[in-house]
């Protein structure tokens, strides 16, 4: 589900030729000679929402990373006298406790760590696969390209979540790493399409032609000339994949086919709170809000990165 959102997001970026002023009005505009990276960095730092989101994200990630030191309680150890406690500052149960007295603030911290960890593996694995497959298809074209594109078309005919559920159920997910790799091996299609498109257009460009004429090897052309020019979309996609992976992993874990207890994951925590939604409302609320916060921040950062890398969006 969310993989397609990522894909759609990138198509939005392509569709957004928001030339606010008719190009004719600006033809004479002199472009300052900043490199693409300097320009992108400058534009990203000016993007207030993206920068704020980035700071919040870093804080959340750091808190999750150092959960062992920050969490007031162990994630599995119950605080028996304080069972079913609503959120309170006394006793440091900021997110309350469940029926057997486990502290939900601590559980959320550890759950965040698991979920973020999974999401980063997913993003890394899928980015590597996506770049390789998309690059090969785009650079060599022909039959390989055709086969790849038909395959991704075919994958689109079956709900992504269904494929994931089948794989997780039968290959036995459970541990975070297994879940991460199952997701990672399925998340690459969107990026592969983007990379393929970029490679297809770049390989026709003059500087690539020139490198070919000069006798550069394929690998040199790919790694020196083409890949650096596709880094923008790749980075944006990898960022958005982290958000998508967090959401999909949470859904899988919630349904019982992803990360499974005793590993704490945000989806598992929400599933645990499902039965007492109206009585112990905090159980499902805080892990859910944490997912929303992380996904929202990543999406804003991704949006900022996209604007930053998009040469078309120079005009306010």
């Amino acid at each position: 589900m969310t993989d397609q959102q990522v894909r759609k997001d990138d198509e939005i970026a392509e569709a957004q030729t928001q030339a606010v002023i008719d190009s004719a009005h600006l033809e004479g505009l002199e472009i300052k000679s900043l490199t693409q990276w300097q320009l992108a960095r400058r534009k990203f730092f000016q993007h207030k929402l993206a920068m704020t989101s980035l700071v919040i994200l870093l804080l959340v990630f750091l808190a999750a990373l150092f959960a062992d030191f920050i969490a007031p309680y162990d994630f599995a150890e119950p605080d028996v006298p304080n069972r079913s406690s609503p959120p309170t500052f006394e006793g440091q149960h900021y997110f309350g406790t469940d029926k057997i007295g486990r502290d939900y603030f601590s559980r959320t911290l550890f759950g965040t760590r698991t979920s973020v960890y999974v999401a980063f593996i997913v993003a890394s694995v899928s980015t590597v696969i996506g770049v390789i497959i998309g690059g090969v298809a785009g650079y060599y074209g022909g039959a390989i390209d055709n086969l790849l594109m038909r395959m991704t078309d075919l994958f689109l005919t079956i709900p992504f979540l269904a494929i994931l559920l089948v794989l997780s159920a039968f290959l036995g997910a459970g541990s975070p790493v297994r879940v991460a790799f199952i997701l990672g091996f399925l998340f690459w299609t969107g990026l592969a399409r983007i990379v393929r498109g970029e490679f297809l257009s770049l390989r026709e460009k003059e500087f690539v032609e020139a490198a070919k004429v000069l006798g550069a090897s394929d690998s040199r052309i790919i790694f020196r000339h083409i890949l650096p020019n596709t880094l923008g979309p790749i980075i944006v996609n990898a960022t958005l994949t982290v958000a998508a992976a967090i959401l999909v992993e949470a859904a899988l874990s919630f349904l019982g086919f992803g990360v499974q207890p005793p590993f704490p994951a945000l989806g598992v925590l929400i599933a645990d709170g499902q039965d007492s939604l109206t009585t112990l409302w905090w159980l499902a609320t805080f892990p859910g809000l944490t997912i929303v916060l992380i996904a929202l921040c990543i999406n804003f950062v991704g949006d900022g990165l996209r604007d930053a890398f998009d040469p078309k969006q120079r005009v306010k």
Partner: protein
Amino acid sequence: MTEPVLSIRDLVVEFDTTDGVVHAVDGVSYDVHPGETMGVVGESGSGKSVTVMAALGLIQIPPGRIVNGEVLYKGRNILGLDEDELRKIRNKEIAMIFQDPMTSLNPVFKVGDQIAEALLVHDDKLTDDAARKRTVDLLEMVGVPNPDRRFDQYPHEYSGGMRQRAMIAMAMANQPSVLIADEPTTALDVTIQAQVLEVMKVAAEETGAGTVMITHDLGVVAEMADRVTVMYAGRVVESGTVDEIFHNPKHPYTLGLMMSLPRVTGEMQKLLPIPGNPPSVISLPPGCAFHPRCRMSEGRELCRTKVPELVEASPGHMSACHFPDEVAIEAKREASVTGLEV
């Protein structure tokens, strides 16, 4: 002389961008009289298109902003009229033809319906049948063969030249008093350009309109225009009759444009390009905006410090150069370099 049908006075238009304020149009004035063709010449970004778009309220506000000026249509200021009043003027009184016929027609509607719409929006009583009949006549007038069949075709079934003819038919539909053609031939094949210019002439004769011919192509100006306004960096730098401008230019930029124009005379000639690039319209150079590219300005303090006013250099011939009379000398010097007589 007749009263001008369209008169632009001291128009100033700016755009806000992330990189600063773009001074797209900076105090532009020119007149168009009934039946005559005013050629407006300049490089891209000189503000020649923005001027007319602003006049018709077709620029986006914001980021655009009209800072100053008047646009007198038959003596009445139409600049800043509300949308509904402007709407009644567009096409009915002042019609436009755009640069790229490939993208200027809506791909999802029949060409005929798009032309007929121009008639229908300005006449509540017109029936669809009558509009169709009139449209077919218009298509015939602009030289579209089989107009009745062509009416029901979509833009992608038209060639570039045919689409531009359809755009001209649309522009002349309501017999406007002013026709504005914004680079009407730029996007077309050279062989088609001449045909479209012929159709433009037909349109001007049919409607008796005053025409504004916006172009960067001096050849088109020579072919079509009675008078010429030369624009540079959002300002008018020279204006006069087409003969005066071509034979007796009073601004080095105009001279530069002509020197960089290839001509088929049988002899091999050197082309003399204008050095440098058009200036950034965000930060114009001080003094005369053209001075960094002007050979005449070398070593002259005045050119670098004082913005030259547009003043009459000879009767009916305006120039915004501090040294309008030296242009002829410069022309001779350059002619000796290139072997080209101005």
